[in-house]
């Protein structure tokens, strides 16, 4: 692609991401008015408190960590033409196991326990992803359906385990025991919530960026996502690639879940991942960032701004926290509309409206 084309397509993807956000905020404003608040001051609170002071910025980045990972998890599967909709379930499972093990292994020193738990989280994510992966790779079962449905099975299994087997009897609500303080990654700055987990997330992001852009594997995954027949014919073992990419996606989700548990939640509760859930947020982020690496980074930070900001709205105004759910739903809705679509490049000699050609072929006729 030459520079001009690149700029052009960049322009369209930016427009396509910003327009839905603006529309969503516009409709969100109506909801805020209905809550008898001034939308401008509500949105002002949202952005000011999460973006325009140091504490807010670090808070935002703190929330952005797992979102970057879940966004990436969706985007890489999409890059290969696969849809891992099971990020949420993989993330929850990893969070749950890390919560349990973070309590059991509490005696281990921090330098050992923190990396160990992150690895555990990754492994759990991979294990959960194995079922849909194998079904897809060996029996060509639609991975979207399997991963999506598996989420609900996992949610209820984890609910059962939290309510019964692993319930902390000393807690007043349904929760696993708190993880040991050795399992909590240290803060980067003493006064702010941002932990070393954010650094881990960024490092993982950079590694994946280079693998996707520069490596043989990334090359084959891109080819597979663009044209499966081509990838097969040029000798890229697509079965293997499907397994790798689905498991990598699960691993990223697992890492996100482990990090979220260790740096923010400290115990598994039934609202561990929040509403609508970090996995689902990842989907929005991947969409908003048009599945491009830089786009995901920006979208994850933006979404973290909205998320942290909306809890501030709830605190400082009478608009409820759920405004963020409304905004998310509206953004997804309008993203899928794609109001300003890049006009499809005309192929030489081809008719500009191919559909019409078909329609017209059988019409006309004898007068």
């Amino acid at each position, binding site marked *: *692609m*030459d520079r001009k084309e690149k700029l052009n397509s960049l322009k369209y993807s930016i427009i396509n991401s910003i327009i839905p956000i603006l529309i969503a905020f516009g409709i969100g404003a109506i909801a805020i008015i209905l809550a008898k608040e001034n939308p401008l001051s509500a949105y002002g609170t949202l952005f000011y408190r999460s973006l325009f002071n140091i504490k807010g910025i670090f808070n935002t980045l703190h929330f952005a960590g797992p979102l970057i990972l879940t966004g990436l998890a969706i985007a890489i599967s999409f890059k290969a033409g696969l849809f891992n909709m099971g990020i949420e379930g993989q993330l929850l499972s990893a969070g749950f196991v890390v919560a349990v093990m973070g309590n059991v292994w509490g005696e281990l020193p921090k330098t050992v326990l923190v990396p160990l738990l992150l690895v555990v989280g990754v492994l759990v994510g991979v294990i959960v992803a194995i079922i849909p992966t194998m079904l897809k790779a060996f029996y060509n079962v639609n991975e979207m359906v399997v991963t999506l449905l598996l989420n609900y099975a996992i949610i209820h299994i984890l609910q059962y385990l939290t309510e019964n087997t692993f319930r902390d009897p000393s807690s007043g609500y349904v929760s696993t025991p708190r993880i040991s303080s050795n399992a909590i990654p240290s803060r980067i700055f003493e006064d702010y919530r941002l932990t070393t987990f954010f650094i881990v997330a960024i490092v993982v992001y950079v590694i994946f960026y*280079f693998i996707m852009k*520069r*490596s*043989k*594997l990334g*090359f*084959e995954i*891109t*080819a597979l996502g*663009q*044209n499966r*027949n*081509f*990838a*097969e*014919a*040029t*000798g*890229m*073992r697509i079965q293997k690639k499907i397994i790798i990419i689905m498991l990598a996606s699960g691993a990223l989700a697992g890492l996100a879940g482990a990090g979220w548990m260790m740096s923010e939640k400290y115990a598994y509760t039934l609202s561990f991942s929040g509403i609508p859930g970090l996995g689902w947020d990842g989907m929005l982020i991947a969409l908003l960032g048009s599945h491009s690496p830089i786009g995901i980074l920006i979208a994850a930070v933006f979404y973290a701004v909205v998320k942290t900001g909306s809890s501030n709205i709830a605190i400082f105004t009478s608009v409820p926290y759920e405004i963020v759910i409304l905004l998310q739903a509206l953004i997804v809705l309008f993203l899928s509309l794609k109001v300003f679509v890049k006009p499809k490049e*005309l192929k*030489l*000699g*081809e*008719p*500009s409206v191919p559909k*019409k*050609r*078909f329609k*017209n*072929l*059988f*019409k*006309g*006729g*004898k*007068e």
Partner: protein
Amino acid sequence: MEVIKTVDLTKKFGSFTANKNINISVLEGEIKAIVGENGAGKSTLMNMLYGLLKPTSGEIYLRGRLIHFNSPDDAILNGIGMVHQHFKLVPSLTVYENVLLGVEINKEVSIGNKKFKTFKVDQKQELKLVNDLIEKYKFNINANAYVKDLSIGAKQKVEILKMLYRNVNILIFDEPTAVLTPQEIEMFYETLRELKACGTSIIFITHKLGEVMDIADSVTVIKSGEVIDNLLVKDTNNKHLAQLMVGRDVLMHVEKKYKDYSNASVIYEVNNIKTKNKWGLNCVDDVSFNIRQGEIVGIAGVEGNGQSELVDIISGILKVTDGCIKFNGNDITNFWPDKLRKNKIAFIPEDRYEQGLCKEMTISENMIAGYHDSPDISKYGFISMKKRLQKSIDLINKYDVRVSKIEGLISSLSGGNAQKVIIAREFSSDPDLIIASQPTRGVDIGAIEFIHKSILDLQEKGKSVLLISSELSEIMSLSDRILVMYKGKIIGEVMGKNATREEVGYLMMGITHSEENTNG
């Protein structure tokens, strides 16, 4: 009388000019050929005449009247019809039902002096109308037959009937002979002559110069969107036209040296392989052949007789259910494509944009696909961007691929240049055997010549080639040995040196020598 005349017809796509000041005229009842290389702008011109595209500037006159078509509907109403290369027919309907599709005649009932249309289609009336047409143009097809049972040549006739029924008197054909066997091409010529005798004017697009000489009255040569020359066929010849098309001398027949390979060692052996398609039918049925060192073996056949599946098996995409394949004495049955490439077998796939190239990737990315793990461009699992680019530039220069930007998308290249990317990639891997399937499909004469030469050069170096093509002249001019495939089987073998078109053509129709003799 001029039925169609264009004056300074110009079509621009953005900054690209596809047609520039085209002036052509078609006379009443003549057969006009439009020739030109791929991407010369023939299709654009035809699409403007048929109302699919609107001219940027310039005028089209129909029988002296200025016209503006908004859609093919307008064109058909004005008597201009088009027969596309890929037929648009419903296989499960009969010939007459296809002809009247969309303009069915409903039975009428009279109540008092008013007539009402019923829901029921008047099949008798329809059949009669279609039969009248068939008789008028001496088409020799059964209007009651189901389209799925027809040969390709007959399907083409149904397409023509569809247009004739709509009172079209100017017919545009887009590469009409691409899918026909030699015998069917003869019949197609007959059809054209009949149409001409009935006063229909015909415009057909082609790259095959032989056809122009055989059937056309006049010819227009288009190059890079401009008319190079308007000629009467009787004033020109093949060679002259070819020169006009590509602007330089072209070897019409590649120089091929025939040798006796019967004593050379067998390097590739296919033994009794079978496979089933998704409907459970044996689409490759007990096929055996071998290729000797330095030999070019051609597989001819009408498309859809199992060649594609055979190539898929050989390329490692489809598995055999029975039989085995050996290369240099080693069993390579059901090997993966990457393993076959490591064994020094290279592939030019039949479907350029499905299997050969990835349209959404750049030229340099396509240049290395399949060989991206070779040590000269990748190390420790990472591909060196610099080396990838360097390799692509080298290959682009060596194989004369015309590109505007090396990091541009492959879809920005013309068919011929895209094919050259595949040729460059596969030939540069120094293979011992090349499997070339339809290597020149849809590419221009310049590129055909280049590809044929590359194949023969490879043979000079002692390499072997398996050539699968539905283009008979390609098979005839390159192969040392010709195998003919019919209904999943190899039904005949002819030595390339003394093969005749008729002989191979009969085999392609499934007629073997013994039958030919018994049938007289």
